[in-house]
């Protein structure tokens, strides 16, 4: 859809680029939104202060809410907006955000975004707005979005629920590997053609696998998972979020690698340093950690090499099961190939890997794949059935309804 002459774009972005480490999120994306058009984009984060009440959060958004009686005016404002978007919501604006359920928080966030004081709202960007809403609340929101657009507002709707995009948006844009791969009026898209255009799981939630076709032993909780490591050494973990769950930033490469092995390297309560160094050297050569000296701090390594150290930490144990929580985040392609080969070799020796991933090429390394959607396993794929098409089909099935 082209911009009508005489009407300025509400938002125009040319050649936007954004990288998170080695992961390129956006590569030269060009995107425009004109008023009165609802644009859907296939792609969460809470923007409220949990310690404040709903009314007080409205005040943070609106500078005009000040002076005598601001609290009363703010409460009326947010209550009216909530009533308008979600009739019969039953939320008291005097409650703190922390005391609300996740769905209620999301409703408040949406209502705050659409609320107006001295200036009208022209554009609202909704990033996965229905991720915590049930079907009826979601349809209330989408109906409101249509009404808002009809009245001349613009909305950017980012969602992985394709049905929402197709039913609500005027124009759909599919992104893959940080580039817009297809952009046309939403009526010309169908669920199938949209999936085909993306060709990658992208935002399609995670899929897990266990190699060697053994029953998996894992505490698996989907995206944003919390891993609980049992106290025995039957299970080892490779953390995905290195900085939070993985590295000890002030320790050396050696100490970071051998921490899980210490019980085996200890005699009379003391660590046998010669054995420790020997094992670490062995693993350095096997997985090719690029460093001259294992006593260098772990942060002197690149992200990919830090991740290799975490792999070595898990693989050097005697654990028959290794849990991997999206372990390739921010790892370059070359390192990935090396790690795949290493995992394959370990799996052939009889180890089980439980791998949580959102990347298609990682998922396709697996012998068995479980596809998760909204917290449930929706498909189990084995052997030759593990391919991109089947995973995508399972991820998006029935969502157009």
């Amino acid at each position, binding site marked *: 859809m082209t911009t009508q002459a005489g009407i300025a774009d509400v938002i125009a972005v040319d050649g936007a680029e954004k990288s998170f480490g080695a992961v390129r999120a956006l590569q030269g994306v060009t995107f425009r939104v004109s008023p009165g058009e609802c644009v859907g984009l296939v792609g969460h984060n*809470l*923007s*409220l*202060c*949990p*310690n*404040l009440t709903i009314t*007080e*959060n409205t*005040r*943070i*958004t609106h*500078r005009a*809410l*000040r*002076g005598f009686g*601001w*609290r009363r005016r703010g409460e009326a404002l947010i209550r009216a907006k909530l009533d308008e978007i979600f009739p019969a919501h039953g939320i008291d604006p005097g409650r*703190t955000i*922390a*005391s*609300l*359920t996740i769905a209620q928080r999301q409703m408040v966030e949406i209502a705050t975004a659409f609320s107006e004081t001295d200036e009208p709202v022209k554009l609202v960007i909704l990033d996965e707005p229905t991720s915590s809403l049930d079907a009826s609340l979601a349809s209330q929101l989408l109906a409101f979005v249509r009404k808002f657009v009809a009245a001349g507002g613009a909305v950017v709707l980012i969602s992985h629920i394709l049905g929402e995009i197709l039913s609500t948006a005027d124009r759909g844009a599919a992104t893959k590997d940080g580039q817009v791969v297809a952009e046309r009026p939403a009526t010309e898209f169908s669920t199938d053609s949209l999936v085909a255009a993306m060709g990658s799981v992208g935002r399609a939630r995670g899929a897990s696998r266990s190699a060697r076709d053994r029953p998996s032993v894992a505490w698996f909780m989907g995206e944003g998972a919390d891993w609980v490591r049992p106290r025995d050494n039957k299970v080892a973990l490779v953390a995905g979020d290195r900085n939070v769950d993985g590295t000890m930033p002030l320790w050396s490469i050696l100490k970071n690698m051998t921490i899980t092995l210490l019980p085996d390297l200890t005699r009379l309560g003391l660590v046998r340093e010669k054995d420790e160094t020997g094992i670490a050297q062995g693993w350095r050569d096997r997985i090719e950690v690029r460093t001259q000296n294992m006593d260098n701090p772990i942060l002197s390594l690149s992200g990919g090499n830090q991740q290799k150290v975490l792999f070595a930490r898990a693989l050097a144990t005697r654990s028959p099961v290794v849990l991997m929580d999206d372990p390739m985040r921010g790892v370059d392609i070359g390192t990935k190939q090396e790690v795949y080969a290493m995992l394959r070799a370990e799996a052939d020796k009889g180890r089980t890997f439980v791998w949580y991933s959102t990347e298609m090429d990682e998922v396709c390394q697996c012998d068995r794949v479980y596809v998760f959607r909204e917290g449930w396993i929706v498909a189990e794929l084995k052997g030759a059935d593990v391919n991109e098409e089947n995973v995508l089909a399972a991820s998006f099935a029935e969502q157009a309804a």
Partner: protein
Amino acid sequence: MRLLSADTLRLLVPALSLAVLLAAVFWLQPRTMSYTGLNLLFNLAVPIALATIAQMLIMMVNDLDLSMGTFVSFVACVTATFLNTDPLIGVLILAGCIALYAALGVVIYLRNLPSIVVTLGMSFVWGGLAVLMLPSPGGASPEWIRWLMTSKPPLVPMAIVASVVIAIVAHWLVMRSAFGVVLRGVGGNQRSVERAGWSIVRARAAAYALAGFFAVLAGMALVGLTTSADANIALRYTLLSTAGVILGGGEFVGGRVSPVGAVIGALTLTLAASFLSFLRIPPDWQIGAQGAILILVLALRLVLNRREAAESAK
């Protein structure tokens, strides 16, 4: 069925602990149940309450001020010397202190420094300046402060009136005003406040300046009660103010503070000391016993926090 929300309970715990402690003191020493008795019990709570509010304002933006004790001591020394002999210079010094607090808030934010390190360093600066000014205890309280702190309003003693006024002013400023909302928002979710177009630098400078202002009032009030000053007069305030905030229902992080609770916390801590004296517990053991009371109240809080967590998980 629950009759009270977790938020109400959160304020009720400090209020109840104070009531129980007060009842115990009355029972042990019935003579305290009088105008003069109450004034004596809570007199020294007034500067502690002011310092607790100051500490609360710092904790509100997820920082901690380890220089509170030495800063209040320094202000007390300025009050007992310059403010008494050369009021203009005294006022300028104190105003400069508040400006310096604002600057500290800005530096801590912009340089991304840990507040405890910066304020620990500042505590030596304040301590040193205080010793330079008053190497030995001395000075005298300005008349008007002395008059204010020892005045006898009808019916209710000054200590109680002052505590109530401090609680109301701080509550209005932090909890009710549109300005206070932005400051608490910084502690709750700084990024969302920033994204809504507010200047975090200004908000943090304001929070620190306000804290400096309340700490200055604490030092002045203290001199009004003691009539003279000493470089080490308020060293305990760092711990007392922090404990008061926590006792009153505040949290170290997350912008969850309660000014009314903080004042009640300060009163409770002061009263706990008197209570232990009335029990004839030797001073050597009192600090330990005070700690035990603190742990007891905090344990109660923990139980309530779990309840709150269960409530929001529903």
